[in-house]
């Protein structure tokens, strides 16, 4: 099959795979899991024609390991999974972060814990995406809410990953993964694609973990004359393990600062509805679509509601949420879990704005009436 073009009906998972291919992904390793498997299927079918490779690994531990390896060999790489698989990936996600390996991990969230409701949506991996791997670390996670965004944000995930040399998590869910919608696929030539920075010094002067002025080290590929020594052990600029006092502090701070000093390039939110409102909804991903619908329902009841939709989840949009809380009478956080983002909202709630939770944990897209009930509670 050749690349689909123009406006058409497409499943979210297919849109994700095409986004990856258009972003330049040439390696996919994965393990089948509902509701993400269509991403693997498209990659298996399409990547060879692009000179790329698909491999089905023995488990998700191996899958993320393989994409990290392939990325270090110079290929843009990604994997896709859901709850149990995302849990298995946590170990090596830390390896990818520590060794600064660009790659994308797509998590099409389903209901957990354990097997949960394997075919049904949830948004309960928000904190796992942030803190699932052990140790101090930054992470970037972005959350699509439509089929179009499954395509667009997959490309954005690759771009952020290449720009910052960090694994980026595309935090989708079963609704955006398996819904079909009309999508407009752009001409691939018109896309802005970011490539990793290559070393400019001669091979003998190359230190693989010596950062540039933006704190990101230029990246050689295995096979280049610039020798790349990538270690999961505490390492200095040479890439070799180093246990001197201060090395770990320096490394961890740089890993953090290379992200947190450049939040303007990462943080993204969407404002929806009237500028001033009695209640501000905070939501993300597929739940945020329901919020947009609910803004209209609330208006019919005479309640002025607007929405702050988080597009980037991690790093958390502290400032944007803080400002929204300061401007509103009350806040309702709508999420398909028992309350994860709400804790982050409360963390930045310096104005003591009342914050309520609309929690969708029924294995389906959160129902509008659940959010409406929280809104009514908030204006009581």
């Amino acid at each position, binding site marked *: 099959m050749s690349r689909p073009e123009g406006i058409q009906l497409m499943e979210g998972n297919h849109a994700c795979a095409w986004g990856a291919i258009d972003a330049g992904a040439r390696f996919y390793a994965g393990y089948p899991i509902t509701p993400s498997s269509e991403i693997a299927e498209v990659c298996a079918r399409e990547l060879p024609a692009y000179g790329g490779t698909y*491999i089905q690994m023995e488990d998700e*531990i191996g899958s993320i390991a393989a994409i*990290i*390896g392939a990325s*270090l*060999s110079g290929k843009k790489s990604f994997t896709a999974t859901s709850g149990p698989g995302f849990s298995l990936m946590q170990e090596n996600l830390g390896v990818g972060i520590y060794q600064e390996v660009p790659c994308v991990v797509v998590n099409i969230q389903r209901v957990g814990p354990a097997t949960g409701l394997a075919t049904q949506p949830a948004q309960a991996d928000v904190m796992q995406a942030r803190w699932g791997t052990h140790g101090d670390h930054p992470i970037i996670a972005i959350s699509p809410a439509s089929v179009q965004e499954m395509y667009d944000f997959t490309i954005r995930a690759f771009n952020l990953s290449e720009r910052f040399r960090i694994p980026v998590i595309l935090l989708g869910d079963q609704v955006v993964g398996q819904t079909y919608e009309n999508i407009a696929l752009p001409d691939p030539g018109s896309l802005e694609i970011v490539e990793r920075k290559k070393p400019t010094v001669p091979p003998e002067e190359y230190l693989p973990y010596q950062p540039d002025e933006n704190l990101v080290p230029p990246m050689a590929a295995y*096979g280049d004359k610039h020798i790349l020594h990538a270690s999961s052990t505490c390492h200095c600029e040479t890439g070799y393990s180093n246990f001197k006092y201060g090395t770990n502090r320096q490394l961890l701070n740089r890993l953090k600062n290379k992200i947190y000093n450049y939040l303007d390039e990462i943080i993204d939110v969407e404002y929806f509805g009237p500028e001033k409102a009695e209640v501000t909804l905070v939501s993300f991903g597929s739940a945020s679509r329901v919020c947009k619908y609910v803004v209209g329902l609330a208006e019919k009841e005479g309640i002025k509601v607007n929405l702050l939709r988080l597009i980037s989840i991690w790093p958390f949009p502290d400032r944007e949420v803080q400002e929204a809380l300061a401007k509103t009478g009350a806040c309702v956080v709508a999420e398909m879990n028992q309350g994860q983002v709400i804790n982050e909202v409360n963390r930045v709630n310096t104005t003591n704005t009342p914050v309520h939770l609309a929690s969708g944990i029924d294995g389906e897209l959160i129902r509008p009436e659940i959010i409406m009930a929280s809104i009514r509670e908030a204006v009581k």
Partner: protein
Amino acid sequence: MAVKLNYREYFKEEALPLMWCAGCGNGILLRAITDALADLEIPPHQVVVSTGIGCWGKADDYMTTHAFHGSHGRALAFATGIKLGNPDLHVIALMGDGDALAIGGNHFIHAARRNIDITAIISNNFTYGMTGGQYSPTTPLSYKTTTSPVGVAEPAFDVCGLAEECGANYVARSTVYHVTQLKRFIAAAIQKKGFNVVEAINTCPTHFGRRNIPGDTVEMMKYIKDIGMPRSRFEKLDEEEKNKYLLTGELVNRERPDFLSVYREINPAASESGRGEGK
């Protein structure tokens, strides 16, 4: 190659002294690998070593080639991606016995089944040395370790037998005592396409030896010299005797097609439809 290469091209001398204990054979194994690479005249930048975690997992600290030092048990999974990301590379996974066969057992059997073009060099010292000498999946039945104080209750894996059954193209076992043979097997494994395993029986006088082999590090070395036995003598032993020895030599050398050759044959890259080849 205009200039004959020397093992020093691959060996990071400024990292000396080696961190391994006196009497450990990892240094010998490292020399055998770097010697083999020099003999094969493979430039360091065309080699990637993927190491696991454990004593032998520190080997990349002493090498000048490209290197990946990842997580415990996953060296082969990372190596799989490294190889598929750039098939021109010589990818060598360096793993210990616990690394390759306990936590990494799943990756090991599937790498062998796929016959992916990677050389796996397993330093088998029958124990988890780095963590203090616990029993591993290759500790012989009834031998003592810190977690089997009266003897281990589990039978050991036959590393080479497992690799053979799972489909490895080349399987050889030697010891760090038999340096010349070891180097020859490593060179053969690196040259051959497919999943190729060299098991190097190694000494651990600090942990395994102290609890099981009377005497000093020299006795430990003699122990591994003596338990290795070529097929001609091994096959004359009765079944009970065989349990006391390890068959050494080139045990498997066959021509199964490797993963990537099969994959590319049935998935030809239609480069005209691709927007660039990704590299």
